[in-house]
């Protein structure tokens, strides 16, 4: 304020000067008034202005200054004392405010200035953050690329795909010009170019593995910058003025399954590496950044792991395929074996039947022929026919038995039988043959040998016959002795039967039979072979004796089934032979002795042959069977009545009928119930008829059912005349009949 507003007497001023002053003051006042307005206007517009109080002050200051200048306008001319007072007040106020403002400004201006610095600072910071953000983003990109790469690599287990994918993805992520993979050759002395990014079919460049640059790369697990001129980097033909981009190489460990020990992570135990070479685009002035190198290292590791996984998988797939193949082959073999067994069984069953039928015809017809009128030559011929066909029949039976024995399908027919009579019968059968050869046969049964035993009588007799028959067969002269006794535990354990651990108990005893002959003996070396099928000893004497060589094999199987043991001893050729066998037999209970079953082996010649007047009732729903059975019985002289249903049967049956024949396999009619009813009908014991069941079934269940309901006998259809004859005679004699089915 250059004009001081003191009250002065007026002097005659220059009119012009005054005019100018007047105008300037006016304009100043205007400006002074408008500035705060502008300030207010703009500050109101802006939301952020922290110094409102300052504004107010400033505004007041300016307004007052303006007012002063305005009032000054009136002081150019004569003015009254009021104007002077107003002027003075204005000036005073202005002085106050301006001093206050000046004071305030001392505080404010540094603040305002520092705002600027802060702004600059923030701007710098923002720029820096932007930069860092850019970096982070790049890194995150890279990380994403790595993850994606890894995912790609690990999503396939195919080695080729893994490597190709690696190169492609790396090329894309890092914008590479070329990317190549060198794999070690089998010899391990060279690296061969196996995969490249740009070239489709890498021609087999090889590079020796012991180059210094390669060693340098292999010795570190970091990515190493290498010269673009080294052989591994010179993949693409250099074309003229290229400044090749920077090249980086990294090792890729090739891990093997054997490298993975639980406690021993594969550090540097693996020596095989592949080499991955990456080239930046030429002429791009790009440089390898740290994060890119890190990416490359990470990828290399992942590739290594992926490759090893692929290798492991390949192995296991191969193993699994092999197993599957083997399984299939085994399955096929098993099925073939089963088919073969089934075929064989079928064949045997059919052959059995087919062979037996004509055999039957031959044997039956020739035996009947024997009973007709024949000349002596004819009789001789017929006898020969009979003998041969019997032999053939035995052979067929043997073969069938043996195959059933081998299947394990043979089961012993256990029953109570007379042990002494078995021996006697064997003796009787063998005596004629032996006497022809002038051999004497002696039988010695121990005192404590039980008379009755439980076991398979037929097979025991077969075994005995075989053994004794062999003794007779192989002896040209001398004697044969058969000794049988109960084996005690000390004698049971025999050094010649080391695997045999017999354990006698209360219900069983061990029968030991020794057959000693003074015949041609056996070479001790051949003894083990004796029990094998179809083998015969070599000496010519035996070859003429016939026989299939199956006998001893079958005997051994039978003896084994009877939980026993059989063996032969000989002192040598022409020094005789002793055959011994031990079998386990059961001891029958005392009370069972009265219920001895009928042995059909005993020829029925001594039974009744004429049952004239025997009243018999036959029940069968099949007309033809009924007629045949009736014919049979009438042929034997019985007085036969027939019925075809159970009601009729119950109606007709009376105490006069001594035997009732029931067909128990009629569908719809329970023969067993009928039997029970019949028995109940007759209270007194001597009135009860004997009930015999006729059945086509041969199973044990039927037999057991019959025994359960108290049926006196079971016969299998069809029945021959002789069989019926013997059945009736045994039935009437013993009142019980259970044919061995």
């Amino acid at each position: 304020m250059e004009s001081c507003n003191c009250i002065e007497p007026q002097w005659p001023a220059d009119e012009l000067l005054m005019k100018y002053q007047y105008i300037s003051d006016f304009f100043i006042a205007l400006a002074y008034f408008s500035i705060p307005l502008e300030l207010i206007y703009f500050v109101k517009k802006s939301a952020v202005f922290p110094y409102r109080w300052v504004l107010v002050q400033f505004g007041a200051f300016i307004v007052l200054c303006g007012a002063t200048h305005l009032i000054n306008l009136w002081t150019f001319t004569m003015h009254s004392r009021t104007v002077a007072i107003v002027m003075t007040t204005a000036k005073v106020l202005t002085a106050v405010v301006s001093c206050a403002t000046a004071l305030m400004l001392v505080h404010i201006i540094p603040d305002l200035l520092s705002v600027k610095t802060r702004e600059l600072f923030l701007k710098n910071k923002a720029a820096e953050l932007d930069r860092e953000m850019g970096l982070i983003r790049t890194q995150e990109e890279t990380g994403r690329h790595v993850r994606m790469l890894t995912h790609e690599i690990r999503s396939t287990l195919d080695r080729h795909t893994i490597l190709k994918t690696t190169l492609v993805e790396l090329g894309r992520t890092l914008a590479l010009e070329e990317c190549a993979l060198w794999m070690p050759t089998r010899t391990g002395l060279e690296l061969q170019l196996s995969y490249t990014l740009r070239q489709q079919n890498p021609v087999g460049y090889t590079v020796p593995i012991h180059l210094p640059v390669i060693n340098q790369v292999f010795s570190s697990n970091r990515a190493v910058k290498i010269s673009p001129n080294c052989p591994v980097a010179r993949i693409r033909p250099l074309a003229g003025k290229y400044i090749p981009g920077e090249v980086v190489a990294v090792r890729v460990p090739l891990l093997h399954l054997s490298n993975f020990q639980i406690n021993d992570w594969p550090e540097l135990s693996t020596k095989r590496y592949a080499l991955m070479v990456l080239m930046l685009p030429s002429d791009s002035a790009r440089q390898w950044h740290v994060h890119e190198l890190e990416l490359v290292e990470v990828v290399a590791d992942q590739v290594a792991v992926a490759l090893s996984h692929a290798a492991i998988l390949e192995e296991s797939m191969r193993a699994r395929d092999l197993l599957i193949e083997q399984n299939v082959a085994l399955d096929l073999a098993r099925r073939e074996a089963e088919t073969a067994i089934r075929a064989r069984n079928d064949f045997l069953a059919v052959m059995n039947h087919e062979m037996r039928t004509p055999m039957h015809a031959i044997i039956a017809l020739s035996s009947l022929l024997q009973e007709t009128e024949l000349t002596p030559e004819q009789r001789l011929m017929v006898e020969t026919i009979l003998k041969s066909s019997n032999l053939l029949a035995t052979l067929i039976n043997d073969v069938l038995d043996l195959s059933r024995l081998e299947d394990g399908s043979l089961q012993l027919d256990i029953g109570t039988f007379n042990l002494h009579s078995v021996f006697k019968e064997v003796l009787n059968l063998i005596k004629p043959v032996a006497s022809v050869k002038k051999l004497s046969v002696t039988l010695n049964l121990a005192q404590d040998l039980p008379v009755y035993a439980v076991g398979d009588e037929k097979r025991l007799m077969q075994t005995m016959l075989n053994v004794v028959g062999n003794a007779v067969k192989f002896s040209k002269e001398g004697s044969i002795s058969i000794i049988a006794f109960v084996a005690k535990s000390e004698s049971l354990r025999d050094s010649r039967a080391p695997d045999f651990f017999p354990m006698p108990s209360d219900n069983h005893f061990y029968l030991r039979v020794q057959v000693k002959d003074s015949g041609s003996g056996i070479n001790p070396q051949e003894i083990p072979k004796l029990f094998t099928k179809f083998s015969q000893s070599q000496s010519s004497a035996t070859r003429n004796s016939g026989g299939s060589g199956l006998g001893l094999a079958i005997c051994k199987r039978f003896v084994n089934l009877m939980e026993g043991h059989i063996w032969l001893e000989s002192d040598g050729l022409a020094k005789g032979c002793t055959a011994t066998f031990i079998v386990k037999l059961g001891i029958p209970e005392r009370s069972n002795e009265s219920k001895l079953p009928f042995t059909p082996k005993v020829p029925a010649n001594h039974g009744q042959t004429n049952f004239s007047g025997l009243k018999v009732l036959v029940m069968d729903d099949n007309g033809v069977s009924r007629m045949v059975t009736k014919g049979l019985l009438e042929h034997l002289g019985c007085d036969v009545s027939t019925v075809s249903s159970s009601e009729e049967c119950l109606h007709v049956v009376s105490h006069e009928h001594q035997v009732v024949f029931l067909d128990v396999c009629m569908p719809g009619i329970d023969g067993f119930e009928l039997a029970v009813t019949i028995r109940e009908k007759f209270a007194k014991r001597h009135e009860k008829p004997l009930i015999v069941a006729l059945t086509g079934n041969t199973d044990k269940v039927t037999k057991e059912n019959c025994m359960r309901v108290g049926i006196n006998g079971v016969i299998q259809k069809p029945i021959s005349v002789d069989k019926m004859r013997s059945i009736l005679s045994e039935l009437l004699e013993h009142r019980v009949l259970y044919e061995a089915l």
Partner: protein
Amino acid sequence: MDVVVQLQRQLADHTASLFHEGFLNEQFNQLQQLQDESNPDFVVEVVSLFFEDSERLLNELAKALEQQAVDYKKVDAHVHQLKGSSSSIGAQRVQGVCIPFRNFCEEQNNEGCLKCLQQVKHEYSLVKNKLETLFKLEQQLIAAGGSFPTL
């Protein structure tokens, strides 16, 4: 006498062939054994009864298997009867077909049953022919004055 001898030989051949080809089995022999003075026509009677019975059974079987809803129990019962009769006179092949027939009945296999029925009919007609020939030869022999041995 020549005629008799020839007829005897023919009869013997025919009988042997019956056995050899499996049409008959030993049971037939048994039947022949039962024929004696008190029962001179036993075999013919039994066989005729068999023919009647079988024809009836075969008709029943054909009818039963033609039904929409086949009653397999009934079919099985008939086959059982047929099996029994044929085994009683020794008609082996007929008996042989009855066994799978029964199996098919158990499985309720219509096709199998029909097939077996055909087979049974076939076998039955074969054995019937053969037996009728046999009887004819026997009659011729008797008429010619000879006698045939009861085997």
